[in-house]
């Protein structure tokens, strides 16, 4: 613990230095509609706290939550299917990889056309970005199981199902947590992109609206909120991970 804290000191110092450079540049430029200073962003965040926290943050978090939920179910399902059947792996793996070459951002306007300005067009963007790391990482987790351990269970007379529940699933758990930690920031980005392109609420939508009003600080405030929310979520997952995975690295 102590070591980790000491390791964070340089990062904190660098962040502070960058913020100071930003502040100085913004003050030198003196054009808040192009580059607001960090201080102006914080002030704007405080002024806008009402709509941001009561309407737009919950809207975005709903997209992130539903999107992550669907991605976890879909990603785990695909990973389990590919693990259970080599034929499914052969059929699905290339498709899953190919799905990642689609520029989701470019397609997002179409999703808005198909699913409207509501929740689901944004959820689709978030899911498309996040199910991939979950499926592939968890699948790698299943494959990381030592052959010798599988064989040992086999000599105990274990069925395929028992081998899955008693060996593969716990062995893949650390991979699952890594996947979730990767997926959280991605789903936040996905939600923001979706909202930016067409929505009635959400932090991405709000940021864009401020853009049209040439309110530079108003553009940054919801983005700052978004990053902090993503970091908090990752921190929460890391805490759960530490409690659940006590054997990492053994």
């Amino acid at each position, binding site marked *: 613990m102590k070591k980790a804290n000491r390791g964070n000191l340089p990062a904190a110092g660098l962040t502070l230095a960058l913020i100071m450079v930003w502040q100085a540049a913004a003050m030198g430029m003196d054009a808040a509609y192009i580059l607001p200073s960090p201080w102006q962003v914080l002030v704007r965040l405080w002024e806008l706290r009402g709509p941001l926290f009561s309407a737009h943050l919950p809207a975005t978090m709903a997209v992130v939550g539903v999107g992550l939920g669907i991605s976890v179910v879909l990603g785990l399902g695909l990973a389990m299917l590919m693990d259970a059947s080599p034929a499914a792996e052969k059929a699905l793996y290339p498709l899953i990889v190919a799905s990642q070459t689609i520029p989701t951002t470019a397609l997002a306007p179409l999703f808005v056309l198909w699913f409207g300005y509501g929740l689901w067009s944004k959820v689709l963007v978030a899911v498309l970005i996040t199910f991939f790391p979950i499926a592939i990482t968890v699948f790698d987790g299943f494959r990381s199981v030592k052959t010798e351990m599988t064989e*040992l269970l086999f*000599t105990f*007379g274990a069925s395929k199902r*028992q081998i899955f529940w*008693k060996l593969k699933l*716990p062995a893949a*758990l650390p991979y699952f947590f890594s996947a979730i930690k990767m997926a959280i920031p991605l789903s936040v980005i996905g939600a923001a992109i979706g909202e930016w392109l067409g929505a009635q609420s959400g932090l991405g939508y709000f940021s864009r609206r401020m853009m049209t009003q040439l309110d530079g600080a108003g553009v940054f405030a919801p983005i700052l909120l978004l990053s902090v929310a993503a970091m908090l979520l990752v921190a929460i997952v890391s805490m759960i991970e530490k409690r659940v995975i*006590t*054997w990492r690295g*053994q």
Partner: protein
Amino acid sequence: MLTFKNVTFQYEADGFPTIDRLSFHVGRGEFVSVVGPSGCGKSTIFRLVNGLLSPERGEILVDGASIAGRKRYCGYMPQQDLLFPWRTVAENLRLPLEIQGGLSTVEMDARVERALEAVGLGAWGKKMPGELSGGMRQRAAFARTVLTGSQLLLLDEPFSALDYLTRLSMREWLLEQWERERKTVLFITHDVEEALFLSGRILAAEGTPITTLRSFPVPSGYPRSMETLRQPELLALKEELISMLRRNAG
């Protein structure tokens, strides 16, 4: 207890059989070691007995019945302890019982408790495997093998990863266990001294393919100590075995 009848086995990648028309017999309650140059196919014999491999021709009998299609007729202990790092020591020992099913949790815990006591790990059940020393881990793995309930135990170089002094004490410990339980033990080792110390009889493989296992009864009763190994008959047998192995290793 265990009978090989003209068993032939060949790995697909090889152009020659690893085991060719091999026949041998191990009686109930015997402690038999299999020695041979490394890579000669000793472990293949074990993998045929525990069902991880199937013979091309011939028949393997345990307790007078063919092993084809049977489960849980032998307990297999591999070189590595293969304790699952996410389970406590006690939970690891419970694995074979969980897989067999049909026992209440209370009964399973009671059996695990007794097995832990028997191997001198009574106080260690709640620890994680990572907290145990190498020798303790092997003892836990041995207890797990015994909990399969099989009368036939296959031990594949279980002490080869331990340091020399730990090995010495583990040998004595294993003999104590065997003298109490009188299960049939088939023990693979490349260490002739270890084989002499432990076994009532030594089966020596003379190279690949294994066509016969030469049987050498060890001219000494039990219990044994380090002194036993200095008896002239045992020293002579040791010389004979070593020179035979060296001849065939080249």
